[in-house]
């Protein structure tokens, strides 16, 4: 039994949008690297080979390299995606890579999604709001929860804050402060959670405007591009109906 299908190996031409804002002489430019494709090569492997053998200054972000941490979102041939789990064999020989738009550029393919996500988290207060959270009785039996509800919550919580939905969002490109699908999904997640004592009026305060749920143009780019296949469009539509009702 063969584990990984073989395909004839090619010479890849990887074009990278490069710019280092820390260097006053740097201007954005496309640089092309050629490298030999290898068996089951991912963009994680390819970019590291380029950095090790061709250009030690090439900047990019990987952490888990297993598709679970959300560090390596970038534009791959025009579409946002996770580079670590993108196999080169699924791409043509000519590959164009660019940093995710909508985030502060650190250098080359590295963008500051962390700062953006922390900002959204603070703004939307993405934590369970309940009395006495710092004095939980940790000796007592936990409060029961319906198994199905726990599963639904996890479904929404699978978001890895990679930023692909922001890069794929029409509104986010026009309104810098739009909370995006990642933010709205968080609101639906906490709204669903019985442990959170906030009600719809509270959530309306957070997202009841056109940088919140009413800014969405329903272009569905977020859901199409979500690496975790989260039901983002459904969640936004649902939230909008709830917020209209407030």
């Amino acid at each position, binding site marked *: 039994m063969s584990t990984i299908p073989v395909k004839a190996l090619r010479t890849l031409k990887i074009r990278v949008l490069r710019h280092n804002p820390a260097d006053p002489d740097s201007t954005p430019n496309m640089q092309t690297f050629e490298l030999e494709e290898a068996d089951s090569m991912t963009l994680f492997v390819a970019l590291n080979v380029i950095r090790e053998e061709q250009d030690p200054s090439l900047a990019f972000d990987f952490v*888990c390299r297993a598709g679970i941490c*959300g560090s390596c979102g970038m534009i791959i041939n025009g579409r946002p995606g996770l580079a670590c789990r993108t196999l080169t064999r699924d791409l043509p020989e000519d590959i164009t890579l660019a940093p995710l738009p909508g985030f502060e550029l650190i250098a080359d393919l590295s963008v500051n999604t962390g700062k953006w*996500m922390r900002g959204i988290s603070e703004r939307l207060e993405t934590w369970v709001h309940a009395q006495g959270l*710092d004095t939980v009785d940790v000796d007592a*039996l936990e409060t029961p929860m319906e198994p199905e509800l726990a599963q639904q919550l996890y479904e929404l*919580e699978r978001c890895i804050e990679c930023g692909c939905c922001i890069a794929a969002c029409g509104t986010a490109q026009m309104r810098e402060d739009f909370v995006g699908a990642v933010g709205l999904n968080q609101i639906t997640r906490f709204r669903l959670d019985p442990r959170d004592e906030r009600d719809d009026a509270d959530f309306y305060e957070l997202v009841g405007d056109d940088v919140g749920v009413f800014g969405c143009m329903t272009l569905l780019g977020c859901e199409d591009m979500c690496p975790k296949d989260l039901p983002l469009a459904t969640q936004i539509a649902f939230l909008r109906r709830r917020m209209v009702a407030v």
Partner: protein
Amino acid sequence: MQIIYTDVLVIGGGLAGQRAAIGARRRGNEVIVLSLVPAKRSHSAAAQGGMQASLGNCLGGAGDNEDLHFADTVRGSDWGADQDVVRMFAHMAPKAIRELAAWGVPWSRVQRGEHSITEDGKKRTVTEDDAAHGLITSRNFGGTAKWRACYVSDGTGHAMLYAMSNQAIAAGIPVHERTEAMALIHDGQRCCGAVVRNLMTGELIAYMAKATCIATGGFGRIYRVSTNAIINEGMGAAIALETGMASLGNMEAVQFHPTGIFPAGILVTEGCRGDGGLLLDGNEHRFMPDYEPEKRELASRDVVSRRMEQHIAAGHGASSRFGEHLWLDIRLLGADHINTQLREVKEICQYFLGIDPASELIPVRPAQHYSMGGVRTNAHGQSPQLQGLFAVGEAACWDMHGFNRLGGNSVAETVVAGMIVGEAMADFCASAEGQLQLSTSLADDFLRREARKLDTIADNSGGESAVELTRLMQQTMTEKVGIFRSGETLQQAVDALQQLHLRAGRVGLRSAARGPNPELVAAYRLPRMLKLALCVARGALLRTESRGAHFREDFPQRDDRQWMQRTLASWPAAEDCLPTIDYEPLNIMNMELPPGWRGYGARDYIEHPDTAKRQLQIDTLLAEAGATDRHQRQQLLMPFLHLLPQTFRTRNQRLGGSE
């Protein structure tokens, strides 16, 4: 020179670091967390299968308690663990999980009624009790007497890390993202902060703190094949070592996980086997029962990994063009189960292997996974050598894992130890010795020293490449300091690593990029990784026995008579080319559970004379005490509650009113 002052400086933004930060913050301290990456991207997120806590809610967990969790953990450690610490841990784990439940983790819950489960290759139906409905459920994991791994599908670490990070944000704890601690500031007795590099701008800043806590996780990336994230280079442990004061415990105790997907080494959870998955060889024969009739696929990780490599060496592997491997079979669990309980596994198989695990076999081979060793601490998480320095989580050798960690005990340790160390740091900050009296000129000296080191690298024309030397180090570790070890190859490894360490001093740069400069990062981390690698290899060479994950082909027995010892590695002078190795005895006469057979793995070991003595003492104590409950018996043998913060000393309640 820029100096940032804080009460508590936590280096590392994973579960352990953030929980410690929250604890210290709640007690009124100013806290700053440093993190190489955005905190929610920390490697804690990669924990898949579960967190061990003896709640005992579901049928498979019925009757579970702290005593069983304690005994499983000590056996798993091959009696290398500190039993006081294991007791503290087992007592705290249910509290940790309940706190996280209140904070928003969507733990999978018990569903009343009939369920089909897979056990030992067969389907069977169990019925969950009405009373347990909606409480936190758990799954089976290796080396445990009960189903004790509480989980959130197979994204447990992700869900925990997000809830924890959100609480830290709610508490207003700043996380200085994309920063790296380069050196600990100390005067030989007292640690008071760190010199920190901003990874975006390259700027050096001094942070001065009353308490400094290393929470940087493991050092798996000194190996070529590892399940670890690429940030797991052990820099926290390395800068502690470089103080010349702090020691690292049991660095030779390195865990290899049985199921890294082959050849990438990406983890698929032990939950696959816990839920009923099987290991098959090249002929699709289920081989584990042949070796381990008691626990089969669910013996401890050290044992399963060893049996797998042994089976491959005997010629029973499956071959692919990348080399030999074995198969993990979860087809029998069915698509429904995989789609809900093992969905990350499914995604990993789909994206990295191009297969559907519901209908195809997963190629696996053991891969480096966990560092039992780390910064040696006392039971409160403080370094015994350097006041004001704390360590927590995988970066620490608090020592609840000894020579082998049980699956699901690491995420549990992060939160439990975070709860304890957060309080300990707050106590320290409030005490007289916690006051910060060191001068800023000390910070200035350390900052200048680090700046000089970086300049030296930038000016170096020695012509060595960090990339090349890193590769050689990783290859040496994987080939010579892996699952099977021997004196001869370990000596070769030590020699090779020493050579690499010399060469690392001649690493220069090809690019002078401003700002992030990834090449400079690789260059300054390399000598630190090599020091850790030398601690591992030399510790392994000197330990002439086999214990837990440390297996010597030339000394295959566990030798309690000579090796009831914890290894302590230190690096007293910067110009040293080898670590100094000392030992700290483990006293059997204080143990609640004296050494014996683990219940799986090898049965022959060399007994220590104290073992029989202690057993007799225990038997006598218990006989004299007459009728007692389990808590009284435990207190009689090894009191530990006094080691815990006052607020955490009370008993855990369980279903049906039992404690």
